[in-house]
């Protein structure tokens, strides 16, 4: 065992326990920690009479990072007893610490997330250094887990059931130290790490009799527990509202957290801690936590650490960007680039249009200032970097160009031609297109190796993803630069190869088409929307189609179809096509922007209800298919299309597929992304293949699993 906790006792009898795992850059709740903490607590109890108090702190940049996710993602149901015993042991130590009879203070020097905060919660007093980058919270829920090291039990007793759920547990907020103080997670702040120990020792001297509130006579849970009639009156709405928020998606963690919080509030703390452990083990044994840990920890880490970036190129920082086109996308791109520290030249055909694009940023900053998210000075400083113009010569010196004009190859060629010789000779040339093949667009410029696709998602300021498309002639150096630009503007980059629709646009289309096909078959449109929501999609498919407009995919389809036929191929008609055509051509319902689509819209543009004509024209009375089939038809359509993207070489890595699908096109987070969905499906890849075949038999050949996937299933391999 490696000792991860240092013991220092000062002349006043105060013991400082410094957590410092020599094997890792951050302290985690691994077996070394468990043994070290056990030893520390044993010694504290043995030497209690000579001890005035205890301070717990860390020698790392962060306080403590939490559980060991490498272990957790491997947990299986048959290890339940082991896991339960381990977490029981961890909690028993902390319980002994808080009932030691001596004041214990957490000196939180840096981020205390998950297990870190749980250790601190077992201390009588928490002092946090208000330093940059420090975050305090219990984000377990974001990985499909619950804070099972006492986090649920102690926050409920500290803050009350409702506040603990809303401010800490159900969203897993990562609070800055000042916010953590406001929420009540810490007791006081100091301005620097150096002030922590003196302050902690001062508190120990002033509070020799410290005990936890919940170990004090007459303690009641703030805000009441279920035995309190006023609290009980609202309690039935808790699970109902949770279901409403989750839209019925397969998210077991929030439900487990709510259950552990409420059940724990009805019993003593020791029993509550056990209840919490049982729910944690249930989550750890399940598939959803594994999916979410894979995507949101390991895949994201792989991407952020440059897993898809070619090696050997120096880190690039863009200084001056020329954004071509100041429409909605261009305006958003200008905003994120300015925030990324670049000078931005925002060009459109007229000064007026360019100014309008800049105004988008003005509005966003006004909002941020009014909500206290930034200061007026900082906002003005950033805004001053955005220069609207109609003149190509203003792009002189730009080392980055991002084109965001209409989706027309001719127009894109034209705008690049205008600026190609104006910008820096080695400027990165990026095109924001959602579907047009990059290789073809690159033909409009002289330096085709410097040309790359930068597919932003709308609204640019909110959507976290950037899909980088590598054309046939795009160089590795260019890709590395593009990757660095993405990180400079705080977007998560995925890298794909060139083809029509790339990865994201192609795959999202299959989701919507499958939904429309179901409506065309005669399934009630309300059922289709519920199926989308309950599958876990952020927006139900018909609603989404209305936002995207029905004419857009119609146009793309017609172009693609023409392409396929021109190349001598055969076009396979998807069941959604006749319905879309009737909606547009016969009923004149083109989507939200035209005031009529799958939904009806009021005078104010608000969605009012599904258009009754859908039921009238398409729904077949008594046509019922299993609800599970409705959900899985959408999920499978996307997953199968993704496999084809790998087959065709469009996709380069599983992390890119998983993260791209979740962050770019709303594939349900509980799945861990579109490939993890296949790997994690019941029965693994083989289970997925079997189910795909069943769906193919029921709903059409487009569900037949590709040969590459069948081979994996037969060999018992995962998709990696």
């Amino acid at each position, binding site marked *: 065992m490696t000792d991860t906790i240092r013991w220092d006792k000062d002349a006043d009898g105060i013991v400082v326990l410094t957590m410092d795992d020599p094997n890792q850059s951050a302290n985690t709740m691994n077996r070394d920690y468990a043994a070290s903490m056990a030893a520390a607590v044993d010694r504290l109890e043995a030497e209690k009479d000579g001890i005035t108090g205890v301070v717990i702190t860390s020698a790392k940049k962060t306080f403590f990072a939490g559980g060991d996710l490498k272990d957790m993602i491997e947990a299986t149901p048959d290890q339940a007893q082991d896991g339960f015993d381990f977490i029981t042991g961890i909690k028993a130590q902390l319980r002994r610490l808080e009932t030691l009879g001596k004041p214990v203070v957490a000196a939180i020097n840096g981020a205390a997330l998950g297990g870190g905060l749980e250790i601190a919660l077992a201390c009588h007093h928490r002092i946090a250094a208000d330093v940059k980058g420090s975050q305090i919270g219990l984000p377990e829920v974001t990985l499909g887990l619950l804070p099972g090291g006492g986090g649920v039990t102690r926050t409920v007793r500290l803050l009350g059931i409702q506040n603990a759920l809303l401010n800490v547990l159900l969203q897993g907020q990562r609070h800055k130290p000042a916010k953590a103080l406001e929420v009540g997670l810490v007791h006081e702040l100091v301005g620097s790490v150096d002030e922590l120990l003196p302050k902690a020792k001062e508190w120990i001297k002033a509070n020799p009799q410290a005990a936890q509130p919940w170990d004090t006579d007459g303690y009641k849970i703030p805000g009441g527990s*279920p035995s309190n*009639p006023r609290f*009980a009156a609202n*309690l*039935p*709405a*808790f*699970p*109902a*509202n*949770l*279901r*409403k*928020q989750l*839209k*019925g998606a397969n998210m077991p963690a929030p*439900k487990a957290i*709510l*259950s552990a919080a*409420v*059940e724990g509030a009805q019993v003593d703390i020791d029993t509550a801690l056990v209840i919490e452990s049982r729910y944690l083990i249930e989550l750890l044994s399940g598939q959803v936590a594994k999916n979410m840990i894979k995507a949101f920890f390991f895949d994201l880490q792989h991407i952020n650490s440059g897993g898809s970036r070619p090696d050997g190129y120096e880190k690039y920082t863009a200084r001056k960007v020329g954004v071509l086109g100041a429409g909605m996308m261009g305006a958003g791109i200008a905003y994120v680039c300015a925030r990324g520290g670049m000078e931005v030249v925002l060009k459109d055909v007229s000064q007026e249009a360019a100014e309008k694009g800049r105004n988008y940023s003005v509005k966003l900053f006004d909002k941020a200032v009014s909500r206290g998210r930034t200061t007026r000075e900082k906002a003005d400083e950033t805004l001053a970097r955005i220069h609207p113009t109609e003149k190509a010569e203003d792009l002189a010196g730009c080392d980055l160009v991002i084109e965001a004009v209409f989706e027309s190859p001719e127009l894109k060629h034209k705008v690049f031609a205008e600026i190609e010789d104006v910008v820096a000779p080695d400027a990165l040339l990026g095109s924001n297109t959602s579907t047009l093949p990059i290789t073809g667009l690159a033909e409009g410029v002289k330096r085709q190796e410097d040309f790359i696709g930068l597919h932003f998602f709308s609204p640019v300021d909110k959507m976290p993803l950037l899909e980088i498309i590598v054309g046939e002639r795009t160089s590795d150096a260019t890709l590395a630069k593009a990757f660095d630009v993405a990180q400079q503007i705080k977007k998560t980059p995925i890298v794909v190869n060139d083809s029509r629709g790339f990865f994201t646009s192609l795959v999202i289309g299959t989701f919507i088409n499958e939904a429309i096909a179901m409506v065309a078959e005669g399934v*009630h449109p*309300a*059922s289709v*929307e*519920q*199926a989308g929501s*309950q599958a876990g999609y952020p927006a139900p498919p018909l609603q989404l189609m209305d936002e995207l407009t029905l004419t857009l995919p119609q146009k793309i389809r017609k172009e693609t179809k023409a392409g396929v036929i021109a190349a001598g191929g055969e076009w396979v008609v998807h069941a959604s096509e006749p319905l879309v055509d009737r909606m547009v051509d016969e009923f004149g319902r083109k989507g939200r922007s035209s005031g009529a689509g799958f939904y009806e819209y009021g005078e104010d543009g608000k969605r009012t*209800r*599904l258009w009754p004509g859908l039921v009238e024209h398409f729904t077949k009375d008594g046509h019922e298919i299993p*609800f599970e089939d409705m959900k899985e038809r959408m999920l499978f359509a996307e997953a199968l299309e993704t496999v084809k993207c790998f087959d065709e070489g469009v996709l380069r890595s599983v992390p890119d597929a998983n993260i791209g699908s979740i962050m770019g096109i709303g594939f349900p987070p509980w799945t861990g992304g579109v490939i993890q969905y296949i790997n994690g499906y019941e029965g693994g890849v083989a289970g997925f293949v079997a189910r795909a075949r069943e769906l193919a038999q029921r709903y059409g050949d487009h569900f037949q699993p590709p040969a590459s996937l069948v081979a994996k299933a037969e060999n018992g391999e995962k998709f990696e």
Partner: protein
Amino acid sequence: MPTEAFVYDAIRTPRGRGKKTGSLHGTKPISLVVGLIDELRKRNPTLDVDRVSDLLLGVVTPIGDQGSDIAKTAAIAAGLPDTVGGVQLNRFCASGLEAVNMAAQKVRAGWDEVVIGGGVESMSRVTMGSDGGAWAMDPATAYDTYFVPQGVGADLIATIEGFSREDVDTYALRSQQLAAKAWAGDYFRNSIVPVVDQNGLTILDRDEHMRPESTLEGLGKLPASFAAIGDMGGFDAVALQKYHYVEKIDHVHSAGNSSGIVDGAALVLVGSEQAGKDMGLTPRARIVATATSGADSTIMLTGPIPATEKLLATTGLTTDDIDLFELNEAFASVVLNYQRKLRIPDEKLNVNGGAIAMGHPLGATGAMLVGTMIDELERREARRALVTLCIGGGMGVATLIERV
């Protein structure tokens, strides 16, 4: 052949408004029950209480005043012999009918001779739902089982069946008018036992929840009762996740077309033919058969349909063979849906109004309806009546009685 279970008497208190200003708010639930036991003995002087083996009482919120087996407590307080047992039972809104059914089953089994079944609920004194329970109060259970309050289920029935606000209000108006007519005609005189105090002073001698002056226009102005909890409480979303083909719930139920919250109690004296003969009591009706069934727990209020179908199958009868149907008026849509699905003619259904007009003292109502039906069968000289109630959890219980 098992022995028949005869009903020798059926009595009830009037129903007091279930709030502080209600006439029975100052009267303890045990006093309501003891008053009825006294009356039962008074009206049936030859009843040999030593032959009574048990008192079964339905109570839906069995805590506080109504807790700790109020049935045995009432038996002791009323001075019944030590040998008379008492059991409190809870089948939510059908508790009172369940008590009568179980009394009949005990007698038909031949293991008991005379059993009193009934129920009591002082809703003004013990708040509905205040007994907690896992279904609504345990998040893990509520989440997984799609729990929603009954009113949202009633509105969901209306939405699915297309009952408009006017439809349900029209039904409510009918309930008020028929109840008023029944009271004016003194149809309930055999059953109603005024509640008196220890000095013999009358506290309440008629159902005080009724609003015979109701109009369709007035009813239409009442706010929807379940729209706010449906939205803010998240329950609409829960129901729609299960009933995925419904886009939105139309909240049509109000205080005017839902059952009233009231205080009251009822008792039904059930015994074997032989015991009745021995004591010189005349049977009024026979409990022919009972049925328990259920349907989806989220929509919750459609259980009377399968319960009725089961009862008809058990007895080999059709709806045409039944003279009167009494379905508790928990919510107007429940009755309209039942009527539509089973094709019950208007003139056979809830002929003297119901809980919308007179109120629904949860634990007692089922027993009250048995008495109401016996009275009406006698008045009409008709033969068969079917009593049923919708029940929490989606259950349905139905009982067939026959005048003898």
